[in-house]
């Protein structure tokens, strides 16, 4: 029974250390890595549910496909690789060391003649001088040798390039080192803390002070990799680690305070440099020092490395003018808010919550698509930079959400400064109902430099109580007092109805109206409809003008002369009025001022396995080069009375070996005073 067990063990070791097993493991590792690269790792569960559906999502989760590199089976493959490589090294070491040291000076003549590469010739030198000539040649050619004088002649057994075998040890030991080091720095220590150390990841959606001790890790945790979010003027002494859909707080042995976060730009507006001016204070000694870190320029302190990883808004204070889009006669109200804050707007008469989600003071955009004037012309000649004429800094931009009482939110993206589009200025606001949509932009035309005009016009245009007065004003301006009263009444009525229609559904409502009402019983040509449509537009534009003028009167401004110069503003105003119906918000937030505050996102990492991995990498590079480029060669010269037999073996079968053999044969023949060696066919 014992014999069987021993045999089984021997067979198992034989299998584990075999080349075929190693090849299979490497292949499996490669396939596992493909899975890990193709399936995005560590995404939220919802993303996988969307991607794979109800049925497969839990199956794949069970298989660990979302965290391949931390999964048990992946670690098992790595463990087997380490085991197999270790066994292989042990298995090979004894014979290989013997091989490296030995010269095989007892090789028999018959076996030398069986070598694939062998040649013989008659030495011209006298027998006494032959041995010296051969050893001198071999020494000169970089061989180490041993001479064996025996009955059938003198065998000089030589070898070179034994270091290639050391390459094998280096490269394979390196694999073990790298795997072990990587394992120490990977997820394993964290997983052990959770499984055995009683640590429980918690939700990331709560204030830091409330995070329980069970979700806090000591500063002496073996290895970790987490994020620090620090606003300007703020500080942090912990890093946030993601674990099992929750977070853990990793305490650091020091406190990191951010003085300033800086972004430098190229002339084109592309970011050139991200830098954080930090103050580090040691928890134990209380000493502090300043240091600036940048991308590619990390800081290492007390075994923890801090890296610049990203940036965010650190709670900029934004000042808004809140403009009503529902009928009201209020002037814009001021409103202050911090980025990241949620402000209930009930106090202002809106049943909405304002969530300020982001702010960027500099916003470089490509404002014109590249022209295709000369698709080939641009290729030749000197290299050019991307044309920077189209890149423009559009100024501060902020994003926010308006959430109604039912919890539905629309997202907005507003530019602070008016944008110039085809020579005219607009206030621009993007809106979308969900993240998956693109923003639809509302362009509010400026009257000269004033944004107030459009809002004032809108107040009048969409206020049903003012429709009658507006229609009257329009009629009085359009028709002489001499016109018949019935005609005036009809025009006033049409204008009022048009206003009501437009307020309900914009230009679409008007065109629907034309389709449905006017021509139900008559056959009308396309031309007729266009005429009628144009008449409606003319009425609406006239109403815009009158609304504008009455707004001016209300503001104590003088009325303007009608002229063609105002036509573009009237047209833009009407379009913006129509678009504003679908804006989906009862108010417009105009940014009037801001106090910018940035935050830096750093990564803190502790990787004590790093020296192991780096040593392994160095050995690996050395070993690979040694294995591939140091050629081990053994040369045997058997000197007999009337014959010199030369044979060569090599651990690698390449054409060079044949050439080297030819080279040494010729060299030895020359050393022995022979012009040419006798032919002998290989068996």
């Amino acid at each position, binding site marked *: 029974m014992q014999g069987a067990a021993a045999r089984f063990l021997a067979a198992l070791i034989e299998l584990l250390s075999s080349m075929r097993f190693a090849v299979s493991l490497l292949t499996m590792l490669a396939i596992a890595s493909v899975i890990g690269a193709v399936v995005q790792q560590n995404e939220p569960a919802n993303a996988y549910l969307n991607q794979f559906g109800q049925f497969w999502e839990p199956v794949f989760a069970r298989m660990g496909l979302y965290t391949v*590199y931390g999964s048990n089976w992946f670690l098992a493959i790595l463990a087997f690789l380490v085991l197999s490589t270790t066994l292989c090294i042990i298995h090979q070491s004894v014979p290989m060391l013997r091989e490296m040291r030995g010269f095989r000076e007892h090789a028999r003549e018959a076996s030398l003649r069986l*070598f694939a590469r062998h040649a013989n010739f008659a030495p011209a030198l006298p027998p006494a001088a032959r041995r010296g000539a051969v050893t001198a040649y071999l020494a000169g050619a970089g061989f180490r040798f041993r001479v064996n004088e025996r009955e059938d002649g003198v065998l000089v057994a030589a070898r070179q390039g034994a270091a290639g075998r050391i390459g094998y040890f280096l490269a394979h030991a390196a694999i073990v080192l790298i795997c072990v080091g990587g394992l120490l720095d990977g997820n394993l220590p964290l997983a052990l803390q959770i499984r055995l150390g009683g640590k429980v990841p918690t939700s990331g959606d709560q204030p830091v002070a409330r995070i329980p001790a069970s979700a806090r890790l000591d500063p002496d945790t073996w290895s970790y990799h987490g994020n620090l979010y620090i606003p300007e003027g703020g500080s942090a002494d912990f890093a946030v680690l993601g674990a099992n859909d929750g977070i853990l707080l990793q305490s650091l042995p020091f406190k990191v305070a951010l003085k300033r976060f800086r972004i430098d730009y190229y002339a084109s507006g592309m970011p050139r440099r991200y830098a954080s001016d930090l103050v580090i204070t040691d928890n134990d000694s209380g000493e502090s020092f300043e240091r600036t870190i940048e991308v*590619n320029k990390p800081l290492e302190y007390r075994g923890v490395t801090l890296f610049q990883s990203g940036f965010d808004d650190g709670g900029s204070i934004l000042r808004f003018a809140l403009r009503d889009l529902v009928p009201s006669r209020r002037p814009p109200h001021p409103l202050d808010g911090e980025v990241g804050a949620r402000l209930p707007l009930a106090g202002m008469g809106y049943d909405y919550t304002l969530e300020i989600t982001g702010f960027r003071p500099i916003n470089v955009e490509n404002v014109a698509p590249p022209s295709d004037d000369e698709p080939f012309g641009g*290729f030749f000649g*000197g290299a050019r930079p991307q044309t920077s004429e189209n890149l423009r800094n559009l100024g501060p931009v902020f994003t926010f959400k308006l959430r109604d009482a039912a919890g539905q939110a629309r997202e907005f993206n507003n530019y602070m400064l008016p944008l110039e589009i085809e020579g005219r200025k607009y206030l621009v606001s993007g809106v979308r109902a969900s993240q998956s949509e693109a923003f639809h932009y509302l362009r509010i035309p400026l009257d000269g430099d004033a944004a107030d005009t459009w809002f004032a016009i809108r107040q009048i245009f969409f206020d049903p109580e003012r429709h009658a007065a507006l229609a009257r004003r329009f009629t009085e301006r359009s028709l002489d007092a001499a016109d018949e009263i019935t005609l005036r009444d009809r025009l006033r009525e049409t204008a009022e109805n048009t206003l009501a229609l437009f307020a309900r559904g914009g230009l679409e409502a008007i065109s629907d109206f034309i389709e449905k009402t006017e021509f139900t019983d008559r056959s009308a040509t396309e031309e007729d409809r266009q005429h009628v449509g144009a008449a409606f537009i003319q009425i609406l534009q006239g109403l815009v003008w009158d609304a504008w003028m009455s707004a001016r009167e209300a503001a104590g401004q003088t009325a303007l002369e009608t002229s063609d110069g105002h036509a573009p503003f009237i047209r833009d105003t009407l379009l913006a009025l129509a678009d504003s119906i679908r804006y989906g918000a009862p108010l417009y937030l105009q940014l009037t001022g801001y106090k910018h505050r940035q935050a830096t996102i750093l990564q803190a990492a502790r990787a004590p396995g790093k020296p192991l991995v780096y040593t392994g*990498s160095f050995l690996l590079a050395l070993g690979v080069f040694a294995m*591939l480029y140091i050629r081990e060669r053994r040369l045997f010269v058997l000197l007999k009375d009337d014959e010199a037999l030369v044979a060569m073996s090599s651990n690698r079968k390449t*054409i060079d070996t044949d050439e080297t053999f030819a080279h040494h*044969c010729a060299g030895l023949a020359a050393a022995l005073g022979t012009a040419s*060696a006798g032919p002998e066919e290989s068996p």
Partner: protein
Amino acid sequence: MKLASSPPSPSAPLAVRETETAPPMPSARKEWLKRRDFGDWFYALALLAAASVAFLRYGEAMDGYDTAILALHVPILAALGWAWRPFRLFAAAVAALSLAGIWLYQGDLARAEQIFFLKYLFSSQTAIAWMSAFFFIATGAYWIGLLARSGFAGRTGSVLTWAAAVMGATGLFVRWYESWLLGPEIGHIPISNLYEVFVLFSLFTALLYLFYEGRYGTRKLGAFALLVISVSVAFLLWYAFTRGAHQIQPLVPALQSYWMKIHVPANFVGYGGFALAAMAGVAYLPGLQKLFAGRLPAPEVLEDVMYKAIAIGFAFFTIATILGALWAAEAWGRYWSWDPKETFALIVWLNYAVWLHLRLTRGVRGTMLAWWAIAGLLVTTFAFLGVNLFLSGLHSYGSL
């Protein structure tokens, strides 16, 4: 002298002549030094002189790293030129043309349009266009040489491939200079985006091929090696014409690092080696050997090229991956983050590690190794291009 197993290659490139004068007691090193001819010494001195001039003129602007790299260039380029003599002429031609281009610019980028030689020869884009044209014609020449058994066509292919390599290298060097002319903050080594590395890939693959062409004295592999280069050049041109990829962009902060200068070239020696091995694998396939009946290089030669190309590719790819890990530790905070590009680098590495092991496994024959090398190129191509196209990750600066 006839040998038990003579090399199948028609030439005997390893120098045989010095054995005829069998020195009485030469040590290996002395023998190697003795083989240096006048050209070798002149070349080495020229390198030393060039490095010295560069150091004396620009040493003030160089930091320790720059100085070390400059110093290392002398022994490395000298060893390369000594071990592979045609490289000396190549280096001289590239140096002459690049310096001519830089000199013609006189610090003014607008001269690219005005000066005849810049406009039609040396400006980076024109040089790269010449490279592309030469590679295409060389491919045709090699194929004519292969099919018509024409030695002349084969030689033409060789000359054109050398010319293409010279123009490609010149184009990259001049581009480097042009990037500095765009602005001192924009200047950077031209290996920072997909367009530039495609030029680098074509260049390295061509040089590797030319080395083996000389080493084995056969031009028959050229038809295959140049195919893969032509495909990459075609991609390069498409990419430039449709996406304007040839425009010089300033470096994003993540790429502003010493490591880029060594990580990227080491990678592309790797990719070049793997591409060459795959093409040798294609020529090795029994079906093709039968189809071209005796026109292709002997299977032993192809097997040797395949092994050597993979060996050099693997060695450099190992270094490149290690350098990448060192860089990642500095830029991303960890030496290995299982980013898709990293993971695929590992897959490529594992693939060729398997290949090298398989070669030593009993019972695995050449045809299987050839197929494996061909499949390896597909994996490599995916790692090089596909990851940027289909997977997102930290290496996003190489995206299409």
